[in-house]
């Protein structure tokens, strides 16, 4: 007698590895690969998930003109139908907890579970920003300790903790720069932004009322120092430089850039989004930088990409510290931590440029970031930077023989590896590689950014991927590059295994459909307004 068959294989399944035609299902689902209609298409009209009073209340005469005159056409679903709808959709999603997110410039990395446990402690999670200050001393302590770490790691004088994200932090830094210039009666109107900066930089400068001028990049992907120097003058308020920049390169001339800008009476903003590549190694304050935001998710592992909210504290030099925004936390003479707002600003920070946010900042993100810092220590943070750079260089050197790497000749990269589409054969594009990566089970890398490189593919593995994980990713990338070289037409129609095939992105952008245009309430079904909450 044969041994019991543990694999569950039966003769009618055919030989291992054989992929015969599979039958269609009537639901469109295939096993656990779920098909999900729009919520409007679930056929839920005439139902309601909650019980309202059966008698609608009187409408106040003041509101009478707003009384509903037509059905709202909202889908009416039961609670389990609603829960299942969103859970089924979430299973079609890709997340950092499912696999690597090699998005360059975005830094999607693992969120350590210890961070989450600390952020959920009731003393941090269940407090209210308007609670009496004596009852939230621990939370203030977290803010103060984190602020102290950020100042020390960056070599800066002060930090504004309240900005809610990177771009918000940029605005904070530029407003502080403007306040400093205005305080000395110096109206300047131009901000210089190099080509290798983050796209939000010129947007921030324009939003703050400045005219933006571009500074070209050199052939090796860095700021053209001579071009920058020749443009400096009494009308230039300052520069915004991303360092390390979006080509994944360290701006080696940063000190010379800062000195030149200061000599011309301007100020230096550094986009610190890529601080994860240099934390513990370089202090931006030593490079002459006046303001820099730190994306806590990028460097200090707080959630990102739908897992937010973001947090973008801004460190400020001694030049800009007097102009920092309120509110901020400060210790009084009795050792108690106090929140300084409008009333206290006159005494503690008379030149503050004002308030950017209703409250003190993103408490949950502060707790996570401080947990990350304390669990790593200075030596651990330095290793974070080293491993991020090592991983990116491993990807760069493992792929440069199959993809064009425009700056690879200039030496090692920082935290991200940049490739172009120059080596792809005619008819194959960066987009094909990105879509092919979906079939391989990875989130695609950043594509077509930065603009200085044709058909850019920007890959940031981060320090949280192991060598084995990187090897799997590199294997997939090599396979895709080789399929393109072999002119494998099936790559042009990838993805083949995603819930949807390649979408018409051009048509989606040209003729976007942003609202449900279906039938609404089917004839004969009562609408939600008619059932009146029964």
């Amino acid at each position, binding site marked *: 007698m044969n041994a019991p068959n543990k694999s569950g294989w039966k003769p009618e399944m055919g030989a291992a590895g054989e992929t015969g035609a599979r039958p269609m299902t009537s639901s469109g689902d295939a096993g656990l690969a779920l098909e999900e209609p729009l919520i409007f298409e679930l056929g839920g009209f005439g139902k309601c998930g909650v019980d309202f009073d059966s008698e609608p209340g009187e409408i106040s005469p003041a509101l009478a003109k707003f009384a509903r005159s037509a059905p709202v056409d909202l889908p009416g679903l039961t609670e389990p139908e609603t829960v299942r709808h969103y859970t089924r959709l979430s299973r079609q999603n890709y997340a950092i907890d499912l696999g690597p997110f090699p998005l360059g410039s975005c830094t999607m990395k693992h969120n350590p579970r210890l961070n989450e446990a600390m952020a959920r402690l009731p003393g941090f999670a269940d407090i209210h920003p308007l609670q009496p200050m004596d009852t939230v001393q621990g939370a203030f302590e977290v803010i103060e300790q984190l602020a102290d770490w950020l100042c020390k790691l960056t070599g800066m004088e002060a930090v504004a903790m309240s900005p809610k994200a990177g771009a918000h932090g940029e605005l904070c830094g530029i407003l502080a720069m403007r306040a400093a210039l205005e305080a000395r009666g110096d109206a300047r109107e131009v901000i210089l932004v190099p080509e290798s900066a983050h796209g939000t930089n010129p947007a921030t400068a324009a939003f703050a009322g400045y005219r933006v001028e571009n500074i070209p990049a050199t052939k090796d992907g860095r700021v053209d120092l001579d071009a920058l120097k020749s443009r400096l003058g009494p009308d230039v308020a300052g520069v915004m430089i991303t360092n390390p920049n979006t080509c994944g390169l360290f701006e080696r001339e940063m000190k010379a850039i800062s000195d030149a800008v200061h000599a011309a009476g301007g100020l230096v903003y550094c986009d610190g989004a890529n601080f994860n590549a240099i934390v513990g190694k370089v202090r931006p304050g030593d490079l002459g930088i006046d303001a820099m935001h730190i994306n806590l998710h990028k460097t200090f592992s707080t959630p990102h990409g739908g897992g937010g909210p973001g947090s973008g504290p801004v460190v400020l030099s001694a030049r800009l510290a007097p102009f920092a925004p309120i509110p901020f936390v400060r210790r009084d003479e009795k050792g108690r931590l106090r929140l300084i707002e409008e009333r206290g600003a006159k005494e503690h920070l008379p030149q503050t440029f004002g308030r950017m946010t209703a409250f003190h900042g993103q408490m949950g993100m502060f707790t996570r970031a401080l947990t990350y810092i304390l669990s790593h220590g200075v030596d651990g943070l330095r290793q974070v930077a080293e491993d991020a750079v090592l991983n990116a260089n491993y990807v760069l050197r493992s792929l440069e023989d199959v993809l064009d790497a425009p700056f690879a000749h200039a030496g090692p990269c920082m935290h991200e590896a940049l490739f172009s589409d120059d080596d792809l054969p005619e008819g194959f594009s960066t987009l094909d590689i990105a879509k092919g990566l979906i079939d391989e089970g990875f989130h695609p890398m950043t594509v*077509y*950014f930065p*603009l200085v490189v*044709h058909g850019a593919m920007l890959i940031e593995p981060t320090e949280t991927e192991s060598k084995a994980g990187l090897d799997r990713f590199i294997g997939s990338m090599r396979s895709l590059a080789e399929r393109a070289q072999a002119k494998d037409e099936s790559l042009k129609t990838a993805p083949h295994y995603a819930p949807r095939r390649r979408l018409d*992105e*051009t048509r989606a*952008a*040209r003729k976007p459909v942003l609202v449900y245009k279906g039938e609404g309430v089917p004839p004969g079904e009562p609408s939600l307004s008619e059932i009146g909450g029964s």
Partner: protein
Amino acid sequence: MTTYFTKDHEWISVDGPMGTVGITDYAQEQLGDITFVELPGEGDKVGKGDSVSVVDSVKAASDVYTPVSGEVREANAALNDEPELVNTKPESDGWLFKVLLSDASELDGLMDEAAYKAYVDSL
């Protein structure tokens, strides 16, 4: 009617005092499928080299610089509904705006078709 080209890949076709401006076939090829064109306002006073229009494609948003100074007299309203005209007919129906030249001598620094072709080949 004479057509001139810029290093930023705009063309301007001049008929008397009026110039018609668009982006070149090479530029649209580089940008890929164009999804939206932000046009200048009629009556806008523009200076040579100013960014006066933005062309969005699936890959990038790119500024369009006016090759000459003057006053914008007409913007190509057809592009609001059919931005793809910039892809299909970049150097005819896909024009962006018409400008009344204030200084015809600014045309002297621009390239003719042969010089532009040589410039593109060198890229």
